[in-house]
């Protein structure tokens, strides 16, 4: 069980937990929390995939000279992706919060199962 | 082909013979029927009297063109049928206008008169007329069925639609008649024959005695006379067709008269014996008895 696998499985478990929360709680705010957890899990998985055992962060300096860089740093791409993913996730979360607020303001409830005026 | 005018007098002669024959025969047959019913019956010249009386009746009214033309159609149908079919086999003289069409013509010309009369009666505006027409058509169309199939069977059997050839094929001993070469077809045809003759048990359409119904009741005087004339020609014409198709035709007038009489007798006898059918009953009768027999006949060939 390498560090990488631990991280990755933790990520997956987080995703599942998050989804479970989001799917079982009726309260929109709780659902949002659930999705945030799941999102975090996803990011963890991303990082874990990019990780190479016993290597340094991809920032060049005295410790990590350019010449040996390719042998000493972890894969920088997933880290870049994660950053983007985080920001996007944050955007969506904010948006959902706004919606949740508005729904509460107009319908007086945060119960997702009550928002079924559109169906069939 | 150019037309030789002598045919016209010949045709008229045929017509004359058949008409008189018809008048007498129907009278005699009626008398026999009456005797069978323990009645005295009409005088044998009764039909002449009726005919003349009606032709010379004074009171004359009409309901309109179609009403006026109805009987004309009717009689034309009868005469036409008679003249489109060769009456006496093998004689150019008595084959009249059969050059203008074959078996199929005869088959379909039957409807000409029916249609016309029905239309005429229809215009009279009397409900009974329409009632009679509707019944009549229902029954006739059903009765036509076995007949049509039988006719087709014969045509198939002799591989021709030409009367003369059909009769020719039946010459030489009565065993060559279709009656014996294809009994089923003939049986079917005879069943149809009963229906077409409109005698009991299939006479609810005209119902001569009890209820005044059907076209004849709408007509009087000359109209009725025309129709009576037809009633004496048309059956004979039909019989001629039968004769030619199933009973070896007629080589001479005497032969013709005997065969015609016997054929007519058949329907008369049945009529005497059986009670009357309602229309749907007779339709079923033709469909259940006539058609299957006809089909057997058709497959027999």
């Amino acid at each position: 069980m390498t560090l990488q696998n631990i991280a990755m499985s933790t990520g997956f478990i987080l995703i599942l937990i998050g989804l479970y929360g989001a799917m079982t709680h009726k309260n929109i705010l709780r659902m949002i929390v659930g999705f945030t957890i799941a999102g975090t899990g996803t990011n963890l998985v991303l990082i874990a995939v990019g990780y190479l055992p016993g290597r340094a962060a991809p920032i060049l300096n005295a410790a990590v000279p350019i010449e040996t860089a390719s042998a000493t740093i972890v894969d920088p791409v997933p880290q870049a992706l994660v950053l983007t993913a985080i920001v996007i996730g944050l955007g969506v979360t904010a948006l959902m919060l706004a919606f949740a607020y508005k729904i509460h303001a107009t319908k007086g409830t945060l119960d997702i199962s009550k928002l079924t005026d559109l169906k069939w | 082909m150019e037309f030789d005018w002598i045919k016209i007098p010949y045709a008229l002669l045929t017509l004359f013979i058949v008409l008189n024959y018809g008048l007498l025969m129907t009278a005699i047959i009626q008398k026999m029927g009456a005797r069978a019913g323990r009645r005295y019956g009409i005088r044998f010249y009764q039909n002449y009297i009726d005919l003349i009386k009606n032709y010379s009746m004074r009171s004359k009214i009409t309901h309109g063109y179609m009403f006026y033309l109805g009987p004309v159609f009717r009689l034309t149908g009868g005469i036409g049928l008679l003249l489109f079919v060769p009456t006496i086999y093998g004689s150019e003289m008595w084959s009249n206008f059969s050059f203008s069409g074959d078996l199929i013509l005869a088959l379909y010309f039957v409807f000409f008169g029916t249609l016309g009369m029905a239309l005429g009666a229809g215009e009279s505006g009397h409900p009974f007329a329409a009632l009679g027409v509707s019944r009549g058509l229902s029954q006739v169309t059903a009765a036509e069925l076995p007949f049509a199939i039988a006719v087709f069977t014969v045509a198939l059997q002799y591989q021709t639609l030409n009367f003369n050839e059909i009769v020719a094929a039946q010459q030489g001993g009565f065993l060559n008649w279709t009656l014996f070469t294809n009994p089923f077809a003939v049986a079917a045809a005879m069943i149809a024959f009963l229906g077409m003759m409109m005698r009991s048990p299939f006479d609810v359409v005209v119902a001569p005695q009890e209820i005044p119904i059907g076209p004849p009741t709408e007509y009087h005087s000359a109209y009725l006379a025309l129709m009576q004339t037809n009633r004496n020609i048309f059956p004979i014409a039909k019989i001629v067709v039968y004769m030619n198709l199933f009973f070896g035709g007629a080589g001479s007038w005497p032969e013709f008269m005997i065969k015609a009489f016997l054929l007519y007798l058949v329907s008369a006898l049945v009529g005497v014996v059986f009670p009357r059918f309602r229309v749907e009953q007779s339709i079923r009768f033709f469909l259940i008895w006539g058609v299957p027999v006809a089909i057997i006949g058709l497959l027999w060939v």
Partner: protein
Amino acid sequence: MTKHMITFLLLLGIGAIFADLLTGFSADQNLNASAEFYATHTVSDTGAANIVTAIIVTFRGLDTLGEVTVLFLTAAIVALVLSGDMAGGFQVKPRRWPVGELLETGTRLLVPLIALFGAYVFINGHLTPGGGFQGGAILASAMLLMLLADPTRRFAHKTIARIESVSGLFYVFIGVLGLALAGGFLDNRILPLGDFGSLLSAGAIPLIYVLIGLKVGAEFSSIMTSLSESEDV
């Protein structure tokens, strides 16, 4: 309860897929082609010490542009949602807690420092960990602190919107410059790469990161303000 059951079963299935991935996963021992390229070419091509930054700002600059747009978009929509135009039912009565002395004084002390730190973070994005987004977030946290200290405080929407848009426009403009002056859209070599490791190096990266920082800060702030203002109706 059926709901929990269904959820459980479905997640079991998803879990199975993940497990499948996990078991099938084999960590590669050295960098793959593209990572290799970044490791070796980053400095020569972009002059940035922080490879991740180089990737974010330059190689995958288009993603980042999209990223910034996401925030811009979110800010816009949040404002849209909370603008009272929608068919409004009843409103919740906001309840105010007194914020307290400590927080207010602390705020006054901290806000400038936080702001400064934020600026530092995004200006040094190409050398050290961090960058525009992190910096922007820190900036915004200063705003948040101020809001916490005084919920009734208002910020000038106009200025925020201005900062958002102008920095955004500049970002796009720099991208086009790259198209015009250098190798392509968002190429950072429109400015001299400078000497490796110094503050003013890595071409346009610091500039872009500054813009991003400002923009992100502004957008977060606008989101927060619109959320907080929605309290008092």
